[in-house]
């Protein structure tokens, strides 16, 4: 294969994945380990999600734009986060095909979401009876912070007075103004919330409110209310690595805030481009879920 063919092959494969995205998620629930966490030494530090192999490679010193802020522009993907895309919290035992993993929660130290009792019961009930309600199966945007650890990575842009992030997955985007403006009124609830950002030295701090209650933290029913409030911190450690942290508050669902942390890895493939992600346009996924999980399929899939 020449380079162009290889690119098309890679892209076609991702396009297919995107057409059957949630079906792929369903398939992964029964089989595979989390989406590739590591980067690739052989390809100069291209994370596996961008086609590289091998461990993540640190980059050079952080570069700054003419506005003095770190230049985080490029393609990034979540590094090793303990399979957070499948289950955000600690999941030491496999269940329903989700492989065991530590999740991404660093506080509380046990790695579990500090649910109020009713909320823990609801999450369990959803897992047992309503997995077909998983928002991404219906082609909804992923919400915050999940958007950061979905498959296929994202692109950061830094036009004047903004940080804008676009995702291949669900063709989602987040517009983060950094001009000091206030949040919109609480009456307006959004899948991706309302984000405002500011810089603390080389750290981008993003405060997100106005989130609706229609997204999950993962694929197994861990959820939040429309009182969710997320503060994310993006700190570029080197040109290939961002330290990512998010503190999540939700007074209706949690007994205390929790915090997640992992690294983001940059693609050094200068030819990389995000492809169009058509989900609604080809979605067959809900029909793949059995009736006992809230779906339409008569046959129970083993």
């Amino acid at each position, binding site marked *: 294969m020449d380079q*162009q063919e290889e690119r*098309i092959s890679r*892209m*076609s494969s991702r*396009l297919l994945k995107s057409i059957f995205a949630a079906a792929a998620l369903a398939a992964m629930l029964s089989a595979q380990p989390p989406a590739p966490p590591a980067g690739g030494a052989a390809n100069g530090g291209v994370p596996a999600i961008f086609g590289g192999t091998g461990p993540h490679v640190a980059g050079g010193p952080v570069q700054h734009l*003419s506005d003095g802020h770190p230049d985080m*522009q490029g393609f990034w993907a979540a590094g090793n986060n303990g399979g957070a895309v499948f289950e955000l919290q600690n999941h030491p035992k496999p269940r329903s095909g989700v492989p065991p993993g530590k999740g991404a929660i660093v506080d509380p130290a046990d790695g579990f979401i500090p649910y109020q009792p009713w909320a823990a019961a609801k999450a369990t009930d959803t897992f047992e009876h309503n997995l077909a309600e998983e928002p991404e199966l*219906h*082609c*909804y*945007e992923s919400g915050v912070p999940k958007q950061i650890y979905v498959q296929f990575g994202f*692109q950061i*842009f*830094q*036009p*004047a007075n*903004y940080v*804008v992030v*676009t995702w291949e997955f*669900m*063709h*989602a*985007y987040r*517009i983060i103004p950094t001009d000091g403006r206030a949040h*919109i009124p609480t009456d*307006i609830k*959004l*899948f*991706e919330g*309302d984000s405002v950002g500011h810089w603390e030295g080389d750290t981008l701090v993003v405060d997100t409110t106005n989130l609706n209650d*229609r997204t999950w933290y993962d694929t197994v029913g861990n959820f939040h209310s429309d009182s969710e409030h997320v503060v994310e911190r993006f700190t570029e450690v080197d040109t290939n690595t961002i330290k990512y942290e998010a503190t999540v508050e939700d007074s209706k669902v949690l007994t205390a805030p929790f915090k997640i942390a992992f690294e983001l890895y940059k693609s050094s493939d200068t030819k990389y*481009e*995000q*492809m*169009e992600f*058509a989900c*609604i*346009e080809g979605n067959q996924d809900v029909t793949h879920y059995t009736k006992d999980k809230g779906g339409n399929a008569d046959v129970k899939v083993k």
Partner: protein
Amino acid sequence: MRFGWMRHSTITAATALALVCVAPGVIEVPVSAQSAYKAPRTADGTPDLQGIWQVRNTSAAFDLEDHAGALGIPPGRSVIVDPPDGKIPYKPEALAKRQANFKNRDAADTLNKCYMPGVPRITYLDFPFQIFQTPKYTLITYEYIHIYRTIFTDGSKHIDGLDFWLGDPRGHWDGDTLVVDVTDFNDQTWFDASGDYHSDKLHVVERYTRTGPDTLRYEATIEDPDVFTRAWKISLPLYRHAEPNFRILEYECQAYADEAAKGGR
């Protein structure tokens, strides 16, 4: 303010015309008086198209041609500036298909299934969009079903062998105009809600030109040898949202349809 720049443009055009009369062939006449507006520049020196924009012509999304009202379709004038009759130059057999599409529009328009609307239709849906610029990219984020388009302005080439709902956009600057060449379309989208359609050979060239502090001219030249006898062109003004609290929010078509199906809002 607006009167100010209009008068200025008029004077500039008149002056240019006068100069042409004196020395024909020496001075280039602006295509229109509005071209005389000089767009502000971004930090890297390119014309600044950034801001939140929207059409005011809300009938174009229903029918690009001159049309009377019909069920679900508000009346409106043609936005087609070429050919001069304002009509889409269909091949005879393609026109028949367009008329069949019109009759079957509720079922056949993929927009009604919350699918991506294609290009240029996304531009004149009655939803705002925001333009961002960096040296390598012009990024457009649309409120409608959280679509974004990443327009490469780095000299990169089209992808071969794939097709997309929104095509593959590659841009370059022609003076103060951002020219976007869009290929690699599928044949699943329409130009409007009246059945005006294309094949997967569609080729669109968009032109974005600032015409004033709060206005931008959007033009799209459309070619498709399987459907049209010749290229044709639409032109629509876009207007800046100047409301200080204005933001791009979300219009989540599929989520709302699901909600309605469950008896919700």
